[in-house]
């Protein structure tokens, strides 16, 4: 018998029932809920007169619509406010635990879950949000779902699923100093494309992934969806166990020992077979910057904006031309010659303490460049913010001219008041550079926190390693 992949193991242990045609009923251990994709699911439950199957698996927090400043004044936009109030009411009516806007534990669901130990190795974790793969960094099977499936999980604690294929992305060797998890995942997406992982569950492996902290692995898994895969994951090792230990909802005493023993098996067997294996050489990865309107439109900082005329595929060429027009860029421009207007450090990709430390390290004793209209740091949760403040990071950012904000999704998708104006160019640590994502007409360049910090203090993109 051949060995199993990590995904195979997670899948099998959660299968309640499997039909001969491969359709399975998969049991869900943790369901994270936010205000945008849940109201219609709760409404559906009410209309059908259904209850929540298992209350203690659900954890809710508002994140997409929450303001990141003057929070004591509430939410100014009445439509945003209604959505957050609707979450509060639904959680109260059904009895679901919620970290409300004024709770120190509130934050972006994908930061809050691991931080609280609410998401653990070996779990199935779902959320009505495509960046749920983040939790796969703990050796969990985590994936985003639509609102109908949110309702399904609430009502049955299960989902009807078809198993994905197995893909291994192996990042061999070690990255150069100054290269982060964000650069690794952007380089991966640049290589396999935004549809490269469609139909697969991706396991990230290799020495460069093992060398990452859990925060770094979360950044990598977070963007699995930008490579087309619903789920991304990393095998459990000692770092995972150390990360989980003593978190509020982590198992304790005897159950901790039992859990750790079970988690030791959360890796692919040596003789496991994958449907697809992709290799990257870590040493080749340089700081990455996206130039276009899809995360696969990404290059190294020392490259030039690509020339669409060199692209033979007509559909791709048209896409590149449209992207350059939208981004206001000329082909062959060196990336380091591109000036920026705004800087956003935050999002479920890069708003954890390690991200803020890396950015602060670059910002320290420097000032935000004169051409930058706004540079902001939005911590991923109230607890990340508190820890950063204990370390004095907020002072470093503020002294340099950054704004230090309250936690939430913020300008990653601009559902709250934080947004780009038309044609404003932003160095952003978020995950999507789609047209209009950060505000109508806004131009997003995806980078690591250190690269965003370097862009903030120089006013243009620059290889952060020349500043360190």
């Amino acid at each position, binding site marked *: 018998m051949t060995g199993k992949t990590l995904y195979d193991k997670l899948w099998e242990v959660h299968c309640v029932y499997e039909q001969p045609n491969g359709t399975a009923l998969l049991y869900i251990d943790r369901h994270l809920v936010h205000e945008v994709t849940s109201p219609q699911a709760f409404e559906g439950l009410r209309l059908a007169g259904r209850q929540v199957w298992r209350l203690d698996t659900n954890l809710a927090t508002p994140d997409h619509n929450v303001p990141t400043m003057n929070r004591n004044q509430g939410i100014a936009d009445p439509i945003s406010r209604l959505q957050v109030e609707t979450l509060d009411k639904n959680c109260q009516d059904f009895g679901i635990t919620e970290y409300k806007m004024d709770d120190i534990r509130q934050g972006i669901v994908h930061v809050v879950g691991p931080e609280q130990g609410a998401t653990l190795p070996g779990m199935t974790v779902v959320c009505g949000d495509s960046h749920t793969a983040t939790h796969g960094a703990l050796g969990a099977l985590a994936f985003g779902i639509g609102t109908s499936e949110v309702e399904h999980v609430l*009502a049955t604690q299960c989902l009807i699923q078809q198993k994905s294929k197995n893909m291994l992305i192996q990042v061999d060797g070690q990255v150069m100093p100054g290269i982060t998890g964000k650069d690794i995942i952007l380089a991966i997406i640049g290589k396999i494309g*935004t549809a490269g992982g*469609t139909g697969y569950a991706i396991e990230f492996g290799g020495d460069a992934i093992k060398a990452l902290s859990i925060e770094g692995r979360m950044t990598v898994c977070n963007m699995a969806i930008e490579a087309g895969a619903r789920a991304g994951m990393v095998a459990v090792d000692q770092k995972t166990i150390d990360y989980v230990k003593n978190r509020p909802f982590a198992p304790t005493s005897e159950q901790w020992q039992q859990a750790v023993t079970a988690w030791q098996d959360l890796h692919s067997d040596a003789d496991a077979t994958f449907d697809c294996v992709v290799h990257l050489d870590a040493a080749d990865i340089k700081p990455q910057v996206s130039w276009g309107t899809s995360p696969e439109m990404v290059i190294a900082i020392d490259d030039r904006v690509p020339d669409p005329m060199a692209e033979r595929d007509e559909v*791709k060429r048209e*896409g590149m031309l449209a992207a350059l027009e939208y981004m206001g860029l000329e082909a062959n421009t060196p990336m380091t010659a591109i000036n920026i207007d705004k800087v956003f450090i935050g999002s479920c990709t890069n708003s954890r303490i390690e991200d803020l430390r890396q950015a602060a390290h670059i910002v320290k004793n420097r000032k935000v460049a004169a051409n930058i209209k706004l540079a902001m740091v939005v911590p991923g949760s109230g607890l990340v913010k508190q820890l950063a403040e204990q370390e004095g990071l907020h002072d470093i950012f503020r002294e340099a001219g950054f704004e230090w904000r309250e936690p939430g999704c913020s300008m990653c998708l601009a559902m709250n008041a934080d947004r780009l104006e038309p044609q404003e160019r932003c160095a952003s640590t978020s995950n999507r550079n789609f047209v209009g994502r950060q505000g109508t007409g806004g131009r997003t360049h995806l980078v690591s926190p250190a690269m965003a910090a370097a862009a903030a203090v120089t006013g243009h993109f620059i290889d952060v390693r020349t500043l360190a």
Partner: protein
Amino acid sequence: MQAFTQCTGLVVPLDKSNVDTDAIIPKQFLKSIKRTGFGPNLFDEWRYLDHGEPGMDQSKRQLNPDFILNQARYSGATILLARDNFGCGSSREHAPWALQDHGFRAIIAPSFADIFYNNCFKNGILPIILSKSIVDQLFQETLATEGYQLVIDLPTQQIITPAQLTIEFELDSFRKECLIKGQDDIDLTLQYVDAIKQYELKRQKEAPWLFREL
């Protein structure tokens, strides 16, 4: 859920790859707590020249005459012809809600993003995957022929072109059956209540920490 058996409809070609769900329904419309009413804002940034916000009077907005959905010959189209990786990005089910509300029953593309593909089936929309070369051919025929219609028959998994050419398509038998019956997934799963409860009892013994109160 609305059942899907057969659909005869006008085809509109959207010649862009990697159409993301942010483009299908921009974020400002996700603030709604309802499941309906997204149709007027489908492809909002492409369809209109002015910026759309929730609650605007749609009749006063400026249509973008260059956007294909606004061209008179495609008015009333129920089949969307698209390119690779349609529906990528955010998991928002508001995307299929908007497509359905606008009147689309089926989408044909060489590939779809996983979450979007799955969400379509929950909303009575049939996403059909065909080879690149056949999709190319359909694009050519649709653009060349005003009033180009296709007949999509789900039970036989066939598309019939105006020239009576038959194109077969594949899909998972479970999803097909649910769509034909317009089946509610939750009702289906609740037939397995005993199996779910047994699973929980077994897991509680194996992994009690998964049953801890939050």
